[in-house]
């Protein structure tokens, strides 16, 4: 899409909306260097280098001006065609001059009838109906209403509500409302505590902010805690459920996708790509499918059960602790970017390992020993979910600690040491 002519042809073929990509970029100064991936864009369009970014000459007015030209050309062509409004243009394939294209030798043998087909209808051919997302019926409206004392006055709110799998992205609008008023910091811890009973729909607890606890008694779907932003999510089985955590699925695929902060305690097994792109949240799970912790860059993951294959692929940050009594984990881990280490006791770690490579549970937290972080997370897990596996592990902690494997990304170790170094030189200088 570059010119008004392109727009008109698109409309004649039935388009209502148009996306422009390259042309507006060029208007802003892109010279199509094809160096976007090298951070050396010489006109400052696709680079983070401050020296090169200074060279960026684009202005919003340039883009506005470009689209004025496009619109003007569209009007000119519409005038030539005798069309008054854009809506009348949409789907009028009869106005296209197709001869030159169809008679071209390369087009021989190709059937274009379906592309130029005009459905016989009295209805308008342009987009006349808005898509109804059913947002008015979203569960979040009730949640926001019932959480008002907490959002407006900082009071503690706690209630129980049923949830069904047609309730998608539960908590996203609530989080938006809190973020609008209180910013990224959210509310005081556990200001809003909601217990959900039932089977939640996709993206349960998406973008949940700090100060909100979602306690789901039942099961989650895919994308539980997507983009988790500081809140706490607990998923546990009902009390009358007789199964054993590490043996049943409790949440679906891509749980905690891109989470940045917060905690999640999931008393059961997750599907594939658990905690993919997690950059700062802490979580406990009792087993994962394939590709766990893929592309993870920060945060803490504790797995109290088996994992699928290709664990830690592309993992560059954060730490995973995997409970591995049968010593099988190594075969399932992608060792390209990570090292496997034992979890030392606090005393051992203080003695043997320099503090510069110690991990912190949440991003920006104080550095702690692995044992302290791991034990606290498992204890929390037991407290919130009543997990049998967590109880068993804690009942004989010295032995169970030895059965954990620490997954440590090589890049993360280097970054931790560098951060420590720069923080210390800065404090010394001060």
């Amino acid at each position, binding site marked *: 899409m570059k010119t008004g002519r392109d727009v008109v042809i698109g409309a004649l073929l039935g388009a209502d909306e148009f996306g422009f990509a390259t042309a507006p970029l060029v208007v802003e100064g892109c*010279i*199509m*260097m*094809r*160096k976007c991936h*090298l951070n*050396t864009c*010489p*006109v400052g369009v696709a680079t983070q*280098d401050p*020296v*090169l970014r200074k*060279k960026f*000459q684009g202005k919003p007015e340039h883009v506005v001006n470009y689209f004025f030209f496009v619109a003007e050309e569209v009007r000119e062509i519409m005038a030539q065609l005798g069309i008054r409004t854009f809506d009348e243009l949409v789907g009028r394939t009869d106005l296209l001059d197709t001869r030159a294209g169809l008679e071209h030798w390369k087009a021989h043998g190709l059937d274009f009838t379906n592309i130029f087909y005009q459905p016989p209808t009295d209805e308008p051919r342009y987009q006349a109906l808005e898509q109804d997302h059913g947002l008015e019926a979203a569960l979040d409206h009730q949640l926001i209403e019932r959480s008002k004392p907490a959002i407006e006055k900082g009071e503690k709110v706690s209630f129980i509500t049923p949830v069904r799998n047609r309730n998608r992205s539960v908590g996203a609008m609530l989080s938006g409302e809190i973020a609008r008023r209180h910013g990224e910091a959210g509310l005081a811890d556990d200001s809003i505590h909601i217990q959900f009973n039932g089977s939640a729909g996709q993206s349960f607890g998406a973008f949940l902010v700090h100060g909100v606890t979602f306690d789901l008694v039942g099961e989650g779907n895919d994308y539980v805690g997507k983009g988790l932003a500081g809140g706490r999510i607990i998923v546990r089985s009902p009390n009358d459920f007789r199964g054993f955590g590490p043996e049943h699925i409790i949440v679906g695929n891509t749980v905690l996708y891109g989470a940045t902060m917060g905690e999640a305690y999931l008393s059961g097994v997750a599907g594939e790509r658990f905690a993919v792109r997690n950059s700062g949240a802490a979580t406990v799970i009792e087993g994962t499918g394939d590709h766990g912790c893929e592309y993870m860059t920060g945060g803490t993951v504790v797995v109290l059960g088996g994992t699928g294959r290709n664990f830690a692929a592309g993992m560059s940050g954060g730490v995973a602790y995997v409970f591995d009594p049968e010593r099988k984990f190594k075969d399932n881990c992608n060792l390209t970017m990570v090292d496997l280490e034992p979890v030392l006791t606090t005393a051992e770690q203080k003695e043997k390992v320099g503090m510069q490579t110690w991990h912190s549970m949440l991003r920006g937290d104080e550095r702690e020993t692995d044992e302290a972080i791991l034990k606290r997370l498992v204890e929390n897990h037991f407290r919130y979910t009543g997990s049998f596996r967590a109880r068993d592990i804690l009942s004989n902690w010295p032995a169970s600690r030895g059965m954990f494997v620490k997954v440590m990304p090589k890049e993360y170790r280097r970054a931790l040491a560098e951060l420590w170094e720069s923080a210390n030189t800065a404090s010394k200088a001060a």
Partner: protein
Amino acid sequence: MGKVTGFLELKRLKEASQAPEIRIKHWHEFVDRLPDEEASKQGARCMDCGIPFCNTGCPVNNIIPDWNDLVYRNEWRQALDVLHSTNNFPEFTGRICPAPCEAACTLNINNDPVGIKSIEHAIIDKGWDEGWVVPQPPSQRTGKKVAVVGSGPAGLAAAQQLARAGHEVTVFEKQDRIGGLLRYGIPDFKMEKHLIDQRVVQMQAEGVTFCPSTFVGSADDPAAKGLTVKSPAD
């Protein structure tokens, strides 16, 4: 592709020229070509653009990013081959071309352009010094004859290409020396004339016959009809 960050780290360097008080004492060229390592650094400034505007800015479409890269990597012999693939006489253009490539260079938008002309100059002069510029006679003759009227740079380039393709080429020149504008239009201090002579020797070895002092056509009736004139090529 040059050095990825070369244009950020290295500055454009002009070729050194003699001080005016020295150069007014003689008629020779007064611009010195870049030393090899400097030329290599200048080549490193090339960004290997996705759309190399230099390539189309150049009237003969020199494959500039390629030989910039080769010079950066010190592969001079290959750089010379790439340069010769589009340009018969880089020693002429490397000296007297107005370098529209540098005007077209992407770096010229908000920086100093790559010193393309100075790199070209360095490649071809090194090529002559090292003896890499040798006659390339055709392996087979076509038996066809071609007359080229005028021995300016265009005539010479056409003659060389035709001779290398196996034709029997004769170049007619009305003046008594070969070179046209190169010889009579461009002063020595810009380009010395032995450069033309060494090309003529190369082309003779490739099978080109030169006929200076031969006027084809007349002032009223130039070129075409006059070509029936008797020549040694007949």
